[in-house]
């Protein structure tokens, strides 16, 4: 929590909206009345937003500017069950896996603040497991496309930029998910061990959750722009 002397007065906290923005940012004092770790995580996520948007905007540019036909993602990512191809099904399942993990993470944060550390840690492990499943499915998807001849520099199905943007965007997202699985596992172990029992302060679970929800958030945009568009 905020250190002594930095706490806002009751008056300062009642004013929000534009007056609140001015009051919070002015007079050379603490601007964000959240734990510093949470503010730092938000600022990191802001920078990550710029990275992912740059990737997606670069993808938009090369897809718009290529004179060669873009492969149809609906067919490229179809899977056949019993001889019947279902369009984009793998990506749909991956989307549901990630959303499920976001839900378990939200519950973990809630149980953390209730100081129910066993439930919080268990839910974090479940979240990490769903993340690992997601990465596994992505590895399957990459293998399938590489076997079909898709490379970062070439693509037998049409525009070669498809391979470049696919591996870069999904690769960078997959890296975030993988890092998130490790991050979740580490924090969950510390929660389970009772590292936060003395202070009773479980905001670390919420901070970890922010990162995890962000990974899900980025996938919402990748799903819309790369796979559905």
């Amino acid at each position: 929590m905020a250190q002594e002397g930095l706490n806002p007065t009751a008056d300062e906290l009642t004013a929000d909206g534009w007056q609140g923005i001015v009051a919070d940012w002015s007079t050379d004092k603490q601007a964000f009345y959240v734990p510093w770790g949470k503010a730092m995580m938000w600022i990191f996520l802001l920078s990550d937003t710029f990275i992912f948007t740059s990737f997606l905007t670069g993808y938009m540019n090369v897809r718009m500017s290529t004179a060669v036909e873009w492969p149809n993602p609906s067919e490229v990512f179809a899977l056949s069950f019993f001889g019947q191809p279902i369009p984009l099904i793998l990506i749909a399942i991956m989307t549901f896996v990630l959303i499920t993990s976001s839900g378990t993470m939200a519950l973990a944060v809630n149980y953390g603040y209730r100081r129910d550390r066993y439930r919080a840690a268990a839910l974090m492990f479940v979240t990490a497991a769903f993340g690992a499943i997601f990465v596994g499915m992505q590895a399957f998807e990459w293998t399938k496309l590489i076997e079909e001849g898709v490379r970062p520099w070439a693509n037998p199905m049409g525009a070669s930029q498809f391979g470049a943007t696919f591996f870069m965007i999904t690769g960078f997202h997959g890296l975030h998910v993988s890092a998130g699985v490790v991050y979740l596992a580490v924090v969950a172990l510390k929660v389970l061990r009772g590292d936060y029992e003395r202070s009773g302060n479980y905001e670390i679970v919420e901070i970890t959750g922010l990162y995890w929800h962000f990974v899900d958030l980025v996938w919402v945009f990748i799903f819309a722009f790369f796979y559905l568009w």
Partner: protein
Amino acid sequence: MATAEGQQHPLSIYFWIWGLLFLFSAFSYATDFLPDGFVRTGLILLFMVLKAGFIIAIFMHMAWERHALIWAILGPPALLLFLIAILAWEGDYTVLTRLDFFSEPLAPAGLEH
């Protein structure tokens, strides 16, 4: 709003949002079966914005934060709209140039500009 005890909200709100995210994801997937056009593109964007909004507002607790933090985080990405606009403009120009100069059937010799 956030208190010294952190963000504590009833569990039911998370289950509601969880359900809505599932529903909107199913709807987004369903747009893949629609014919290409403005309707499909519009629905893709609509469900994307709804899902992103619910994740940020509820799961990431932005709805309960103070405006100073909300604007510091959600304000700067608005600059990215300029990046998107100038790269769309540039992409449009590039593809027209490519079609003009590198694609024989579409650009017959002697085409006047």
